[in-house]
């Protein structure tokens, strides 16, 4: 078996004898024959060489405003891009297999962070997306696994309140209402069935049920009210 050396193609390491063979030596013919007879293995040792070059002992590859760091596997695991002023505008992280793990980017005054789930050979699927402005969360979205379908959406409305939407995996609205900034349910809340039919309505104050809850049957007809005080 052979191993390619990192910075030259004019010699090769024979890993069985642990000797370096140069292209002017008689033994080089042995390598070229092996290479022709073992195309896949030749491709593999070329890949291994490229991976090790990319890895570069974990050091950063800098090209202009872009910085890249690679896994030992040769796949990128960290990518950063800066603007001319030196501020970070893109920062992506990757799983060991090269699938995207998270992204960060600046769009105007907004910062957008996304996280992903690793699906192996199928790539990554989005898990969450958060929009912030000066460190304040403006909107956050959580997705159903492997689907790109929104599960929950929280949007800041004011310094006190945020609106919450919950969806079924078929995209139908499941619940909506307000949260305070401690994520406690507050104000009027409505819950719906998978068929878009009202199931119940409630009123909350800082996470506690107040006033009356109204319950409905599968046809959306009122069935019961419960008083909470």
């Amino acid at each position: 078996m052979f191993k390619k050396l990192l910075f030259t193609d004019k010699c090769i390491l024979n890993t069985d004898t642990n000797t370096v063979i140069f292209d002017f030596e008689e033994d080089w013919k042995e390598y070229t024959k092996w290479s022709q007879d073992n195309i896949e293995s030749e491709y593999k040792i070329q890949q291994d060489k490229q991976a090790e070059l990319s890895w570069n002992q974990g050091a950063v590859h800098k090209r202009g405003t872009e910085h890249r760091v690679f896994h030992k596997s040769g796949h990128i695991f960290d990518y950063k891009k800066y603007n001319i002023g030196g501020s970070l505008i893109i920062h992506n992280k990757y799983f060991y297999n090269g699938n995207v793990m998270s992204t960060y980017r600046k769009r105007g005054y907004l910062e957008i962070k996304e996280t992903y789930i690793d699906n192996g050979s199928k790539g990554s699927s989005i898990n969450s997306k958060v929009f912030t402005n000066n460190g304040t969360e403006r909107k956050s979205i959580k997705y159903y696994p492997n689907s790109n379908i929104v599960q929950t959406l929280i949007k800041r409305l004011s310094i006190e309140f945020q609106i919450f939407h919950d969806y079924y995996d078929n995209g139908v609205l499941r619940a909506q209402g307000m949260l305070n900034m401690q994520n406690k349910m507050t104000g009027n809340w409505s819950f719906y069935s998978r068929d878009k039919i009202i199931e119940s309505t409630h009123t909350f104050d800082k996470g506690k049920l107040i006033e009356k809850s109204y319950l409905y049957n599968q046809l959306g007809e009122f069935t019961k009210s419960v008083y909470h005080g």
Partner: protein
Amino acid sequence: MDKLVSIIIPFASNEGQDIKLPNHPITTSCNIIYNTIQIINNINKVLTFNKEIIIVDNTHSFPDIVMPNLRIVKGWQALDREQIVNQPSFEKYNIDDFNNLSMWVSMAYNVGIQHAKGDYIICQHNDVFYHSNLVSRMIKDMEINKLEYISADYKKIFLSGYVANKEILYKHIPSIEFSPEDGGYVKTKAIGFADCYFFLSKKSFYDDYFVDWGYGDTNHGATIKCLDQGKQFLHLGPYYDNPNFKTENSDHDYLYKDSLFITHLKGGFSEDKYAEDKYNENKINRKDIHNFQTRLEKLC
């Protein structure tokens, strides 16, 4: 074990009878009859004790077939209103909403219980697959530990379920915290509700109780009854689909004393899942059905 166990399985399909689903056109079923027969085969093969299997045919569309230990009884859903009202036990069940689909599933259990001759009753779905014959051991344990029932699925308590049973539940969950996700639920590991995926009890459990549709198409009322009467029960884990608990997979395998007992294949009698329009348009349901059929074939 010489005691007779009655296994009650509701069934519904659209093949022979129209079922009006809210917001749905009349739909047709896929292989629900075939799948139910496979589940009956599985029961006969794995559960070797003295038993009867009662299919409660809610849509009067299950084929008139003969299988070992099988009895097919007619459910009430396909009857017209007058026939239902004239049933001798009608008054017992407080039916005031004939269009409630969840109620007909619960009522199928009640009809099955009426016909059951067993000392013990298992209420289950037609998508529950048995891996091992642990029921005899469970019955012994129920007697030793004075358990009123053993149930699969430690369901989270939904907000509406909590509200509807607030007076009793409040005593057992003193500190209430709600999450708005998953349809709104009570954040607690302290307590959950039973379900009819698999529900084992003595027949006498139903002397002062019936599977009450007011609690949904499940068996939450059984838990409420035990809490109210201060009696013991056991819920089988892992607790899938419950955000209060983390599960490592979504296989819906249930264990009893560390042994694999059943798998809930999640593709049973729910007509909604088999609705043709959803089958064609909704990739998620199509995937569910495919998964269910693939797993059933593999297990059988």
